[in-house]
Structure formats: structure tokens, C-alpha cells
């Protein structure tokens, strides 16, 4: 274990490119340079230059390419953290840094494959009390990522108050986002303020967050934390089924077939009837030109987010799928949107990540061609007001709106029946008594089919459509609220 600790610390020191007169680059991978298969990791780059200027950094060897521009002041070190998507643990990874478009350096990054489960220990208390457990790795605060995507590389984390104090603002924010997606975190001897911040942010009813006082049994708490089972959100495939846009084939297949059929008929008629030898070639040329001109211009975007929350929680976790379908050859810059959690996966080809070091905004630059699509799968969490109360007794289920604004239309699933609930004004309630459930064909809509499937483990569930600011017609978000088994009766009045 000591050897492993030493190795982790050595790897965390990173690799320094040979210094030249103008530029010095340090680069290291998060989590002690271990990478667990395909997924996002993160490179910490520290650059210092005696002359200053604009530094262009690009990754190579991992897909997609990530590029960033940094403004360097003379002799002032500058840090940046780059997301890097590693396709397999065999891919070589390197950085190229170009200062003022002239001085160029290459930095090769070493990393080691390590399969999950993998438990990170930070701080002397965490290491001392848990390092004897299998699959644990001692790390230092600098190993923790600044980008929440990077938490794909571990299964759980135990951190004590000393290590927590050493985290910077972005590391803390990323760790909170990890907790918001039901990441397993054990806080040892955390201050009241830190504990409160984590409890308020934790999703999955806080089952994946452990709070440990100094004298508690750390091993027992940690083992019970990692033994908690996750109720995964709908799969990528299920979410794709909710996308409202027609598939590329459905959209263009029919049109293309009709166009080519009509073209062939006219061409044969021209060849057999027309006296001019230029009529048929001219028509063919015009048809080819029409294909080029009349092809749809814009790349379409479909988006679906599915969120779930227990009635006793304040944080909903979600998974979303964003599908871009290309209709013509063009370079599209895809920006983040309101549901921007951490990107879990990007499926597609010919794209790169364009990273702004100044604003932290990341964009996907996609060289699109027709019939191609690019999917972005995102996980995240967001706060939800608890003004909607779900109640049930032996023969009635009810929903009351204790908030100050109207709700959106909802669906309720209770005792095997599905009900449609109209928008509820502030202070209004709805009861299943004397209400007629929807018929058996109600589940023809894909979101209701998924709702019924997801409702099975819960006694009472409600599905709400969420409003997305500036949403297009093919953008939808759904929130499923379920009543916990532990809390079947809550008063309607707040």
C-alpha cells in the first residue's frame, strides 16, 4: 500500500516538458493518473512563460481533440484543466503547446489502466482508517478533479476535513455535483457548514452520502455506503425512445425515394420523346443542382431529460440525451444549454471539444455530414421545490399544490391505474376519488410507457412536464416524483 501511495504521489507530480527559453509546461492527469477504461478524465496543465503571450494547447491521441487558448503574463504561472475523453486505456495521450504561434512543445502523458471499483481516500484520517480495505487508493487534494465529468474514474470517495480544507472552489463544486448525481462520498469529521452543503445537494435521498464523526466506525460506515445499490435512471436507449424528432431515415428516406423515382420517370420520358440531345443531360444537371440547393439547411436538435426525485427530497437527478442530426455538410458549434450537468458520453464522429479557459464554456465543434447524428448523454441534478405533496390512504391518492404558482399538467400512477391531472392552481388539491383512470391505450405515448415502467417499485408516482427556457419544439423534460415507502402520509397544508 505504501508503494502504491508513493507511486500515486510520484505520478501526481506530473511530467514536465523540457524547458526552453520562453515556455515551461507541467501536465498531469487527475486521480493519480489512473484511468478506468473509456470515459472522461482531466488534465491539469500549468504553464509559465518568460515572455508571456497567447498559448494554444491541444490534446492528441485521445478522441475528441480538446483545444484551449490561454493568455500568459510574463513569469506568471497559469493553470487550466482540460477534459479529455479517453477511448481505451491503450490510447497514447499527449499535449502540444504553442506559444504565440511559434514556440512549440510536446508533452507525453503517462497513465495506468485500473478497472472499477476504485475508492479514493483523501486526508490522513481517511487514509489511516480505510487504506487497509481492498481497491482503495490514497490521494492528495491536488488529485481531485476540477471538472465533474472526471468522477467517472472512481466508484467512491472518502475525504476528511483536512483534505476538504485544501480543495479549491472548483474542486468543491465538482464534488458537490458528484454527490448530486448519487456519487458515493464519505465525509469524515466535516464541519457543520460543509456537511449541510453536501446534505442539501445530495440526491437519491442521501443514501450515497455518509457523514462520519471522529469516533465512529469508519470501516463499517464506508462498507455500508459502497454496498448501497443504485436505482439507475432510464438507459440511453430508453431516453432515445422519447426523442420526438423523426429519425433521419424516416425524415429523408421517403423524400429521397420520391425524388429519385420522379427523376427516373421524367428522365426516361425525355430520353424516349425529346428530340433535343441536350434535354435529358440538362434535366439531370438541374436535378443534381436541386438536390444541392433544396437540401435542408439546418442541423436539427432533439433533447429529452428525465429526472426523478423522492417526495422527501429537494434535489432531482436527471439523465438527458441531446441528439443533433445533420442534414448537410457543415461545421456546427454546439453549446451547452440549461440542462448542462456533466457529460457522460458523446457518441458520434468528427468532433472536437473547444474549451474557453476564460469563461469555462465548452463547445463541441462538429464537422457534420448528412445522415450523421451526434448524441450527448448528460447526467446532473437540480434543486426542486417541495410544494407538491403526494398523499395516499387505503382508497384515495391525492396531490396538493402548496406553492404560489400553478403546476403543469401531470399524470399520476397509483394502484396500477393511470390518471391525468389538470394544472393545479396555487393551494388546490386533486383527489383520485370519483376520477376515471385513463384507458388501456394511454401508454401509447412513449413518456407514459416509460413512466409506468419506472413507477413499478413505488406506491405512488406523479409525472410532470418541466418547462425549459427557450425550448424548441423537440425539447422536452420530465420529472417523476415518487412517494417514499417511509413517508406515505403528509399533510396537504404546508
Amino acid at each position: 500500500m505504501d508503494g502504491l501511495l508513493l507511486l500515486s504521489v510520484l505520478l501526481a507530480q506530473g511530467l514536465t516538458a523540457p524547458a526552453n527559453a520562453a515556455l515551461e509546461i507541467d501536465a498531469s492527469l487527475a486521480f493519480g493518473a489512473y484511468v478506468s477504461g473509456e470515459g472522461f478524465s482531466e488534465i491539469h496543465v500549468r504553464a509559465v512563460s518568460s515572455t508571456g503571450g497567447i498559448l494554444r494547447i491541444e490534446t492528441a491521441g485521445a478522441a475528441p481533440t480538446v483545444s484551449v487558448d490561454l493568455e500568459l503574463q510574463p513569469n506568471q504561472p497559469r493553470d487550466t484543466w482540460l477534459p479529455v475523453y479517453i477511448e481505451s486505456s491503450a490510447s497514447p495521450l499527449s499535449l502540444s503547446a504553442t506559444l504565440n504561434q511559434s514556440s512549440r512543445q510536446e508533452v507525453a502523458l503517462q497513465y495506468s489502466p485500473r478497472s472499477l471499483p476504485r475508492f479514493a481516500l483523501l486526508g490522513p484520517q481517511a487514509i489511516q482508517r480505510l487504506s487497509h480495505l481492498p481497491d482503495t487508493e490514497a490521494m492528495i487534494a491536488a488529485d481531485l478533479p476540477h471538472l465533474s465529468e472526471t468522477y467517472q474514474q472512481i466508484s467512491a470517495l472518502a475525504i476528511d476535513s483536512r483534505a476538504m480544507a485544501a480543495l479549491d472552489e472548483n474542486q468543491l463544486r465538482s464534488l458537490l455535483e458528484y454527490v448530486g448525481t448519487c456519487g458515493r462520498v464519505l465525509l469524515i469529521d466535516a464541519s457543520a457548514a460543509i456537511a449541510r452543503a453536501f446534505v442539501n445537494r445530495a440526491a437519491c435521498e442521501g443514501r450515497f452520502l455518509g457523514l462520519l464523526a471522529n469516533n465512529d466506525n469508519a470501516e463499517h460506515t464506508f462498507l455500508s455506503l459502497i454496498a448501497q445499490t443504485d436505482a439507475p435512471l432510464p438507459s440511453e436507449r430508453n431516453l432515445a425512445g422519447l426523442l420526438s424528432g423523426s429519425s433521419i431515415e424516416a425524415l429523408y428516406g421517403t423524400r429521397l425515394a420520391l425524388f429519385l423515382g420522379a427523376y427516373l420517370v421524367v428522365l426516361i420520358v425525355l430520353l424516349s420523346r425529346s428530340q433535343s440531345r441536350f434535354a435529358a443531360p440538362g434535366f439531370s444537371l438541374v436535378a443534381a443542382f436541386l438536390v444541392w440547393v433544396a437540401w435542408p439547411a439546418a442541423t436539427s436538435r432533439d433533447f429529452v431529460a428525465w429526472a426523478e426525485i423522492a417526495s422527501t427530497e429537494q434535489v432531482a437527478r436527471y439523465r438527458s440525451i441531446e441528439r443533433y442530426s445533420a442534414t448537410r455538410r457543415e461545421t456546427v458549434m454546439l453549446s451547452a444549454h440549461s440542462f448542462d450537468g456533466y457529460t457522460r458520453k458523446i457518441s458520434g464522429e468528427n468532433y472536437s471539444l473547444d474549451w474557453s479557459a476564460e469563461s469555462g464554456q465548452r463547445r463541441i465543434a462538429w464537422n457534420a455530414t448528412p445522415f450523421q447524428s451526434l448524441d450527448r448523454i448528460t447526467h446532473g441534478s437540480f434543486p426542486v421545490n417541495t410544494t407538491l405533496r403526494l398523499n395516499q390512504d387505503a382508497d384515495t391518492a391525492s396531490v396538493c399544490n402548496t406553492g404560489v404558482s400553478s403546476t403543469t399538467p401531470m399524470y399520476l400512477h397509483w394502484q396500477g391505474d393511470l390518471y391525468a391531472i389538470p394544472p393545479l392552481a396555487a393551494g388546490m388539491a386533486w383527489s383520485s376519488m370519483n376520477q376515471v383512470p385513463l384507458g388501456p391505450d394511454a401508454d401509447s405515448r412513449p413518456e407514459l410507457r416509460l413512466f409506468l415502467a419506472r413507477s413499478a417499485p413505488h406506491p405512488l408516482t406523479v409525472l410532470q412536464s418541466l418547462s425549459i427556457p427557450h425550448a424548441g419544439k423537440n425539447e422536452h423534460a420530465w420529472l417523476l416524483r415518487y412517494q417514499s415507502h417511509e413517508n406515505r402520509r403528509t399533510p396537504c397544508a404546508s
Partner: protein
Amino acid sequence: MRKLTVLPALIAIGCLVAVAVWWFTQWSLLPATDAAAAQDISQRAMRLTLLLQLMSISLLAPLWANRPSESLAGHLTTSIFPALFPAWPLLTIFWMATGVSAVALTATEASILAAGWVVILLARAIRQLVPRAEINRLMQASLGLVATATVWLFRVEWLQWIEP
């Protein structure tokens, strides 16, 4: 004269229909998210269309040479050209789908045109060298078969520069 103009066009249309049907069948069977495979199908369909164009021209060009009244330039417009133009809209679709350079595609079409012209020249030379009609026809048919077989043998080398 008119029939000879229509024949290559009809053969080209037949090839075009075959490629289009095959492409639609393959493409519609692909899952929507399999973008890479869709790209590959379009790429293969483009190569197949170009290959069929060149093979049909290689096979038929020696026969077109038996029109002594036709000038060499006339052969281009009445024989070779009609074998090419029906596929242009389909090639435009493939071009948009694959990202192949427009210059490379145009150059390939031009190379087919030039190849057909060369085969016609060879067939005319055979006709002048061998006056007997039966032997002449046989040699021209052999020339067509050899040219087609050569195209088939070197199809990979010929089409390798059609890359997105």
C-alpha cells in the same frame, strides 16, 4: 443513331436503380444512431456507382466505335456522356453524405469519360487494322471484356483516392 444514344442512358439508369435500391435497403436497416455505418454505406454506394459507370462504358465502348460517321468528339456526347449523366443527382446525394471532395469526384467522372474515349479509339484502330467484319467484331468484343476485367481488377487502386 438515336437508339445508340438511348442505350447507354438506359443501361446507366438500370445501374442507378440497382444502386439506389441497394443503398436504401442498407441505409434503412441501420439503427438511427449508427452514424458511422450510414456514412460507410453512402461511401460504398458512391464507389459502386462510379465502378458501374466505368464498367458499363468499358464493355460497350468498342461497339460504339462501329459508327464511322461519328467523330471522336461526337462519341463523347452521343455515347459516353449519356452513360454518365443519369447518375448525377444520386452522386450529388452521395457527395453530400460522404464529404468526398467535389474536385476528386469531378476528376473521377472525367477519368471515366477519358477511359471510354480511349477504348473507343482502340476499337476504331482495331477496325482499321482488321478489315474482316467477323474477326473485327470478335476482337472488339474481346477488347470490351478485357477493359472491363481490367477495371474490375484495379478497382481498389482506382477508387482509393475517393476518400472523405
